[in-house]
């Protein structure tokens, strides 16, 4: 804190630290500065008293409890709004988003397609007449003549 600061700025700076001061969370060096200022400043001393009183009053407020049967009421509301379909163990399809399921299904479909295409026994490979030509054994013709 500079001694050349205008008075109002000094007050503002001290006042901003009063909450931390009351809560005991101000570093020791700053505590000393605040206390030195408070010793000669009735306005900031009043502000400190105000903060203390307010914090004390607020901490004395009762903890309000939820009404009895609150949990049952909430569960009933959920059941009513969802037509009874909300509770209950979810199926796999509920847990995994539809988009993810669609992508996985597409990937599996494509993998199956390429597997079948590459497979020798796969039915999806186009019939290649050249490679299926029967082996020639000299001049023997075992193949029955076409009608």
């Amino acid at each position, binding site marked *: 804190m500079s001694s050349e600061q205008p008075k109002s700025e000094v007050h503002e700076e001290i*006042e901003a630290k009063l*909450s931390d001061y009351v809560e005991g969370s101000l570093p020791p060096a700053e505590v000393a500065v605040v206390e030195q200022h408070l010793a000669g400043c009735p306005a900031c001393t009043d502000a400190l008293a105000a903060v203390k009183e307010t914090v004390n009053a607020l901490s004395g*407020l009762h903890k*309000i409890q939820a009404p009895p049967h609150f949990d049952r009421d909430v569960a009933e*509301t959920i059941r009513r709004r969802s037509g009874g379909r*909300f*509770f209950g163990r979810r199926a796999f399809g509920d847990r995994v988003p539809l988009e993810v399921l669609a992508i996985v299904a597409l990937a599996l479909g494509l993998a199956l397609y390429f597997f079948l295409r590459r497979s020798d026994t796969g039915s999806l490979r186009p019939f290649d007449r050249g490679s299926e030509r029967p082996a020639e054994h000299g001049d023997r013709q075992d193949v029955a003549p076409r009608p």
Partner: protein
Amino acid sequence: MSRETRLVRRLRDRDERAFREMVDEYSDRVFNLTYRMLGSREEAEDLAQEVFITVFKSIDTFRGDSKFSTWLYRITANHCKNRIKYLARRHERGKAELDERAEGGADGPSLAAPRPSPRPDLQMEGAEMERVLQEAIAELEEDQRILVILRDVEDLSYEEICAITELPEGTVKSRLHRARLALRKKLLKHV
């Protein structure tokens, strides 16, 4: 696996027992926050229900980056802000309608809104100071109100408050300090 992680997993499975356990554990804290923010038991109860319904519906979006209670408080704080705005709009509309009717003449029914009769439960809770404090809290700006309640009523740490409000610590502290001073002024006005 921690108890909280297990609870969240069971909530994701839409296990009704887990849901009841969660409500049982957190209902008082949520209700206290909604009550202090709104100042009305009926509104607080209705809003607390909405909070738990939201938790249950959006449990899949809870990533576990923060504590479950922090996430729950964040949902509660957001619901409170929205409800306060809604109630303010409704109040303004109601006031405008009353003004219109008043200008139209005094033929209609009595226009003065009756003061709510004191409820037995509030009387039991209530020292005069409690009522005055609650009224003063209700007059604070909503961003100040939430900080005062989280810090001075709920006694949460600054770390938790920053996670709930998504504000930096410096902002939380300076706003809280202004809120306390504002509250003090309002208290003096009421007393």
